């Protein structure tokens, strides 16, 4: 199901997932792959930042509670390095502070776990389309 390489086929939409819960990470990756996206997943902010190819992505699915830094700080770091793909925030801990932070970083969508597959696929599709 995985499409060879996003660089080789420009029309393929590449989604990056940063989620430290390995079950959720795998489940969301499978879902987006089944929906036809090219998916690259990371278990921590550091793992993504260390990856030079991260800049190819069309959309970023970011968990808030990451082991090394929160998803919002990660997004700011990425923007500082010139990476401006739209962000879909996913979180298990929904509160006003997180909602505000998501608004502040200009997140494309904010989904609280457990979210329906439809809502994630829809948010990611629209975010990636907006990026073009």
């Amino acid at each position, binding site marked *: *199901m995985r499409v060879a390489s996003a660089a080789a086929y420009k029309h393929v939409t590449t989604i990056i997932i940063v989620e430290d*819960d390995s*079950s*959720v990470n*795998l*489940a*969301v990756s*499978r*879902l987006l792959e*089944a*929906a036809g996206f090219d998916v690259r997943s990371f278990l921590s902010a550091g793992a993504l930042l260390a990856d030079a190819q991260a800049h190819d992505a069309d959309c970023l699915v970011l968990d808030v*509670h990451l*082991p*090394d830094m929160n998803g919002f700080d990660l997004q700011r770091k990425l923007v500082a390095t010139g990476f401006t793909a739209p962000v879909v925030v996913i979180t*298990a*801990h929904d509160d006003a502070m997180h909602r505000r932070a998501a608004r502040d970083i200009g997140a494309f969508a904010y989904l609280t*776990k*457990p*979210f*329906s*597959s*439809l809502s*994630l696929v829809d948010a990611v599709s629209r975010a990636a389309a907006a990026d073009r």
Partner: protein
Amino acid sequence: MQTVLIIALLVQNRRHSRARADVQRQYAEITHAARLALIGEITASVAHEVTQPLSAILSNVETADLLLSQPQPNVPLVREILKDVRQDDLRADNIVRRLRTLLRKRELQLEDVDVNALASSVLSLVLPDAVRRNILIRTSLDPSLPRASADPVHLQQVLLNLVINAMDSMKSTPLEQRVLEIRTERVPGAHPHLTVTVLDKGEGFEPAKKDKLFDSFYTTKTEGLGLGLSIARSIVRMHGGAIWAENRNGGGASFAFTLPFKGP
């Protein structure tokens, strides 16, 4: 004259017992509020933990559905997904079980606790870890410390939390400066209490964040949910005490809490 005296004594006695009843009621109210706060902490933590497997299950089930609706379904992948769904279900069940155990222990079981002995036992628990991390342990335990009316299991949890935080904070401290100290002190006066202080030579904390240190989900650590200090605060308040943090002159932080005791 004697009758007047007896009546006066009776009135005084009634006043005293009313005052005692007030104090007891206030104490009950405070401990009730603190207990609710503790349940709140635990619930928030459990809700967060349970949501992860629930979220994975939902995504997996809907993905399986999507796969099966394709003309040539990838059955091995669907099987793999079902295996993960089962595992996540068991994981969620495990979390709920742990919650039950926690709530069963929730009631405070007050005993006369020798806090100095408790501090020593906590230090002996962490000693191997401290040695491994090159941390020198010092104690300054007040020999006149009265016994406190406390739940030793909960109190141990508070102390252990403060000691582990103190050790964690010294990760970047030069080896020869890594000192952890526990002090106990009897503080007489209108509100007699004992104070337990855990001091480290670590990074300290940003003064602006002082009020946030004890909030749920606030953490400076790379692992952990940020519940240790908020649970510690709930437990200390449940005992009628207070907990706070200070940066030390010359580096490091000190975390102190109080426990009231009866008598002078």
